[in-house]
């Protein structure tokens, strides 16, 4: 099929004038090239799928954070269950002792440094046993002399009380 030269030339975009529809359609098709079937090739189908894909991208931003937090919580819970305490107790206890480890780091420790994680659970058990709270399924932690430091830890703000 022989097309004459004028048919190949695109209308050059100018201000206040319609430019060639090719430019807008190509933009959508660039986003759709990995889609399935004709949605990746035909503009009228691609336009719908691409707009929906953008909506999904927007919506998933908040959902992704929540899902990651859920995953971390699940992993911490499972790791703590092996040592006999609930995951919430670990996170709460570490916060009260001013040990600043967030859920992301705790689940990394639980996977890659299990003995450090166990020592954290021991700390939390010690803290709670000093307050008289004993988790039901837990083995008692190794006896450690804490001298009340877990209950009132030295932080930059209260250092003057301990000098």
């Amino acid at each position, binding site marked *: 099929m022989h097309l004459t030269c004028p048919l190949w030339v695109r209308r050059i975009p100018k201000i206040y004038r319609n430019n060639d529809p090719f430019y807008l359609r190509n933009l959508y098709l660039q*986003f759709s090239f990995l889609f399935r079937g004709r949605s990746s090739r035909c503009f009228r189908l691609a336009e719908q799928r*691409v707009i929906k894909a*953008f909506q999904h*991208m927007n919506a998933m931003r908040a959902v992704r954070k929540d899902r990651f937090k859920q995953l971390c919580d699940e992993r911490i819970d499972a*790791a703590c269950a092996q040592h006999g305490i609930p995951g919430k107790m670990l996170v709460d206890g570490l916060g009260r002792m001013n040990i600043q480890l967030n859920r992301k780091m705790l689940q990394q420790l639980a996977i*890659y*440094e*299990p*003995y450090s994680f166990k020592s954290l659970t021991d700390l939390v058990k010690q803290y709670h046993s000093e307050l008289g709270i004993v988790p039901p399924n837990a083995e008692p932690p190794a006896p450690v002399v804490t001298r009340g430091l877990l209950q009132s830890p030295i932080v930059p703000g209260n250092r003057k009380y301990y000098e």
Partner: protein
Amino acid sequence: MSRQMLPRVFLSQPLQNGVSRYTCQLKRITLKFCKFRPNSLGAREFIENGDFLEFARANPQVACYLKPRRNRPPVLQAEFANGSVQLARIDSFPAEFVRRWFWLMRGRSGDDLLPLHENLRSFHPSVQGVWTPFTFGRSVGLGDLPDSRHRPMSPSATELIQQLHRLQSARMS
């Protein structure tokens, strides 16, 4: 869709640069600017303040070029050891920003800027050993089979034969 369009990569350096020895990956940097137009003012000030010479002296491994181009916006062109070329538009930037772009290019490896899976990467992420069900003794996943919590399984071949035998002996007797 975003992950399909721009695939994510892991942090990496060309030829493990920095593991034993660090080589600056920036080979040539060219500052193209106009001598008259106002959007090149920052670039001109950067040169006149002596910051360009300071950069060139501090980095003898980088070939620094100046390219005055009439009636063109200012651009920073950086060429790297892996052959890639990166352009930074410094249109109407203050001199301090131009200086920061120079030093930023000095620290780059020339790899494409792509979204990362994670901001960290380690080939040995575990020092104590990755957790297994056997790390703290066999205390996880213990139980006997068949477990009453599982769905009732269809009878095994042995059980079927035993059932048949019982039925047969009941009929016979």
